[in-house]
């Protein structure tokens, strides 16, 4: 199965790109009696510039500030980014399919956000630490977390199926925004240790409204913590569009806390890589936090439980498909002659194998032992847990007796 065929799950039109209009957001109205003033206020705010290195057509555009972060990139590395994105999308599609087949209880697809995740994920160093939300399957991939490990919580066999310290990739966090503070605290610890690694905290556009995220911004600024806040603005927080969450572009939030914010084209893997490298490097140099807003789009539903047709028009998705992150890099690779047919064919095989492996791994996943309920509630044990475990065992045993009769 090729990239294209994976993507074909979503109808795709070849309508020409709307030429870099990603930064333009229509002014919203609130339904209050004061829409006039409101609209004025909104329109007055200058619309942000996106950092973009690859156009939707796959053309490499110059950027005085950020080029240097990807100048030395080799064709092989570029193919690597492409491969990462393709395999991530393949994995994601497989998980969506597995949910439909009843193998998973839920899936939160990253479809459309591959460039933001692979670009930023590949910018991290081994000793950096990543704090994801629940949608960073592409970042997990970059960190070397086995994709099948991500599926446990969606299958309902655990609440986090990997050791965060093995790949410096923290568990998925579902309570929106909480992990921004954990990331900041972790980064404060790096400073205390005198180490020169950095932390990256992922969250969504909706999450930006949570008090915890603002508190994290402030702690990070006050302690000059080496943490990069990476906000994937995928335009939607379930059914709520951006203007329900914020009056002005999110990257501007940072300034009020005393650190820089940048909006990057989140469908441009090269730009995402460059901007994240910039932010991580300055964090490692001791220059403190930065906020990156990756302007991207959630092409699928919020999760498999969601029905986006209730709140958004299909044209929107169609327009974003023209800016597809994978297509864009493919065009660039092809025009730069960085690839041959062999590459795509091999990747197709690899992709197919990954899909098979994921399917098989999920189907082989055992339900946890019932006693797992009582495991790991405490590190040092707890008398009541012991008592309840024993009662549970006796109760379970009583059935065995009955069945034994």
């Amino acid at each position, binding site marked *: 199965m090729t990239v294209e065929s994976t993507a074909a799950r979503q109808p795709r039109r070849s309508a020409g790109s709307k030429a870099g209009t990603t930064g333009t957001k229509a002014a919203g109205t*609130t*339904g*209050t009696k004061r829409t006039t003033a409101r609209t004025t206020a909104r329109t007055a705010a200058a619309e942000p510039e996106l950092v973009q290195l690859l156009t939707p057509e796959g053309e490499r555009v110059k950027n005085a500030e950020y080029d240097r972060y990807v100048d030395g990139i080799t064709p092989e590395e570029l193919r690597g980014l492409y491969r990462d994105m393709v395999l991530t999308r393949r994995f994601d599609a497989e998980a969506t399919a597995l949910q439909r087949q009843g193998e998973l*209880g*839920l899936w939160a697809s990253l479809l459309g956000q591959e460039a933001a995740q692979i670009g930023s994920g590949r910018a991290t160093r081994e000793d950096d630490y990543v704090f994801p939300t629940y949608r960073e399957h592409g970042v997990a991939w970059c960190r070397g977390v086995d994709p099948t490990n991500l599926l*446990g*919580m*969606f*299958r*309902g*066999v*655990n*609440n986090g199926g990997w050791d965060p310290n093995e790949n410096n990739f923290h568990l998925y966090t*579902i*309570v*929106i925004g909480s992990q921004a503070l954990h990331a900041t605290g972790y980064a404060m610890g790096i400073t205390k240790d005198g180490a020169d690694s950095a932390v990256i905290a992922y969250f969504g556009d*909706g*999450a930006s*409204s*949570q*008090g*915890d995220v603002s508190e994290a911004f402030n702690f990070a600024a006050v302690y000059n913590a080496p943490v990069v806040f990476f906000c994937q603005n995928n335009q939607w*927080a*379930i*059914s*709520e569009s951006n203007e*329900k*969450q*914020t009056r002005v572009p999110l990257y501007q939030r940072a300034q009020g806390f005393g650190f820089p914010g940048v909006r990057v084209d989140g469908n441009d893997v090269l730009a995402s890589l460059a901007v994240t490298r910039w932010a991580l490097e300055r964090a490692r140099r001791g220059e403190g936090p930065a906020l990156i807003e990756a302007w991207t789009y959630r092409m699928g539903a919020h999760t498999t*439980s*969601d029905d986006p047709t*209730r*709140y958004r028009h299909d044209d929107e998705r169609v327009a974003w498909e023209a800016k597809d992150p994978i297509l864009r890099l493919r065009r660039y690779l092809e025009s730069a002659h960085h690839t041959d047919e062999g590459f795509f064919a091999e990747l197709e095989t690899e992709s197919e194998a990954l899909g098979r492996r994921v399917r098989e791994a999920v189907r082989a996943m055992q*339900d*946890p032992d*019932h006693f*797992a*309920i*009582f495991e790991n*509630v405490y590190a040092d044990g*707890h008398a*009541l*847990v012991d008592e*309840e475990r024993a009662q*549970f065992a006796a*109760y379970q045993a*009583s*059935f065995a007796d009955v069945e034994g009769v």
Partner: protein
Amino acid sequence: MAADVTAKNLPLAKAINESLRRALEEDPKVLVMGEDVGKLGGVFRVTDGLQKDFGEDRVIDTPLAESGIVGTAIGLALRGYRPVVEIQFDGFVFPAYDQIVTQLAKMHARSLGKVKLPVVVRIPYGGGIGAVEHHSESPESLFAHVSGLKVVSPSNASDAYWMMQQAIQSDDPVIYFEPKRRYWDKGEVSTEAIPGPLHKARVVREGTDLTLAAYGPMVKLCQEVADAAAEEGRSLEVLDLRSISPLDFDTVQASVEKTRRLVVVHEAPVFFGSGAEIAARITERCFYHLEAPVLRVGGYHAPYPPARLEEEYLPGLDRVLDAVDRALAY
């Protein structure tokens, strides 16, 4: 009772929807607020169609910030509104906990009665739907312990409808726990009925050998337990407590004085759960009547487990029957 021509057969979620609709219609001060309550109609569709009919001014999609939702609802209530706020899932009420406990609950007392905060906080709660972490919890104890709040939980469509009407009409803040796994269960709702008091328990089924007390999602289970026990010749009385704060101890006491045995069932962890308060108080009230200690069936002192384990974690027919057997064995 004569057949009620106004009665409709509605799923519990739809009953709440209709109750909200009626409140929005009858009182222009009623507002509905929360994450995704607008076009989406909430993740469970409880607010379906309301924004379309009442506008964005009254059915408000809020930023993703629970403290902000409850905090601004308090401000709106101070201005004379009656906000009904939705918390998307049980596990997401905690960012709002400070506003609920230190502000919403205390403002009436703090102002010596000058300020009323008629805010309803809707929380879909409980497990049994195979969800991921934070989506299946039962935190009602954490609200019942806090004075100034009222805490209720309907078990069926009719109560869901009428208790919501009464919660909105109440001048006190009401935490309204919705048994999410019963959202799709249908029941008769008479929109013309004259409902009983909001905080009164109801005898769902009369019995003589033992009382089962529950609320919200566990009432149905207790009825099934009573059916099963009946087959074994045991007559169980089932109480739907309906309100957790205040808790109608009089009805429980009357039942226990008759049956002399009590088992309390809830999904929340047993430790420091509602069952503890009921056991303590009923033991005090019925000390010479009880033939057995009050037994409790509920969740374990462990985080709500991943979905594939929830059946083992949740009180089920067998576990409740086991407690019934143990109580009857005294």
